[in-house]
C-alpha cells in the first residue's frame, strides 16, 4: 500500500463520514 493510496483513502473516509453527517442533518431539517 503506497502512502498516496493511504492518504486518498483516509481523505475519502473522512469526506464520506462528513458528507453523511451533512446529509443526515439535511434530511432531519427537511423531514421535521
Amino acid at each position, binding site marked *: *500500500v*503506497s502512502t498516496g*493510496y*493511504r492518504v486518498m*483513502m*483516509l481523505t*475519502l*473516509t473522512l*469526506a*464520506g*463520514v*462528513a*458528507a*453523511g*453527517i451533512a*446529509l*443526515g*442533518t439535511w*434530511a*432531519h431539517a*427537511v*423531514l*421535521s
Partner: protein
Amino acid sequence: VDGQVRVRSIVMYVVGLVVLASATTGAFLAMRDVLAIGGSCASGGPYEVAVPCPEGTAVLIVGGIFGWLVGAGITLVAGSNLPGDYGTVAALAWPGLFLSFGWNFLEFGLDPADGGGVNGGMVFCGVLFFLMGGVPLVLGIKGLARGLWPPATAAVASTGTAPAPAPRTATVDVARPVDAAPVGSTQSTSAGAMTPSPTPPEAMTLPPQPPAGTSARAQPGREDIVGELERLAGLRASGALDGDEYERAKDILLGRTGEDAR
C-alpha cells in the same frame, strides 16, 4: 479489470460510509427531538395521543436503523475488497451509534427537558450506552488505526496480484522433499529452484517466501535426523557398531545437519 473493480469498491466504500453516517446522524437528531418533549411520544392508532411525535421521527429512526445496517454492510464488503484493512472501518458504526445515543441520554438525563431533577433512568442508559460503545472502541483502537492507515505490507494480502506468485512458492516447496531424499541435497535443490525463476527480484521481495521455504526445508530434515539417530542407536545396541564407530557416525550425521541448516 482489476482497476475497474477497485474503483467500484472505492466508490461503494464511500457510499456505504455516507449511508452509515447519514443514518446515524438522522437517528441521533430524531432521538433528540423525542427526548426534548419528555422522552416518549406516539403517533397514529385509534387512541388519543397525549404527546404526538415530532414530524419525521418515525422515518428518521426506522430509516436510521435500516440505513445503519445497510451502510455498515456496504462499507464492510466494499472495504474488504480493497487493499488494506478498510473493511475494519465498518466497525466504527457500533461506537458511532452507541456513543451518540449515549450522549443524548446523558445530556437529557442530567438536564431533563421538563425542567425536573436528574432523570436517573436516562443517566443509567447513557452510562450503559457509553460503555457499550466506548469499551469496544478502546479495545479495538489498534485494529481501527490499521483500518484507517494500513501498514505498507498490507497490499499483498488483498490485491489481485498476490495469488500469482503464491503457487510458484508452493510448487517449489512440494518439489523439494522429493529431490531432497539425502539431507545434504536440499541446498542445491533450493538453489536450482530459484535459478530458473524469470523474475528473481520479484521473488526476493515476496515476504512469505523465505519463512515458507525455511520451514518446509527444516521439517523433513529434522525428521530424517531423528530417524537416523534412532537407527544408529539401534545398531549400537545390537552390537553392529562399537562406541567409537557410533560416535563418529553421529558426528558425521550432525555435521551434515549443520551444513544443511546453513
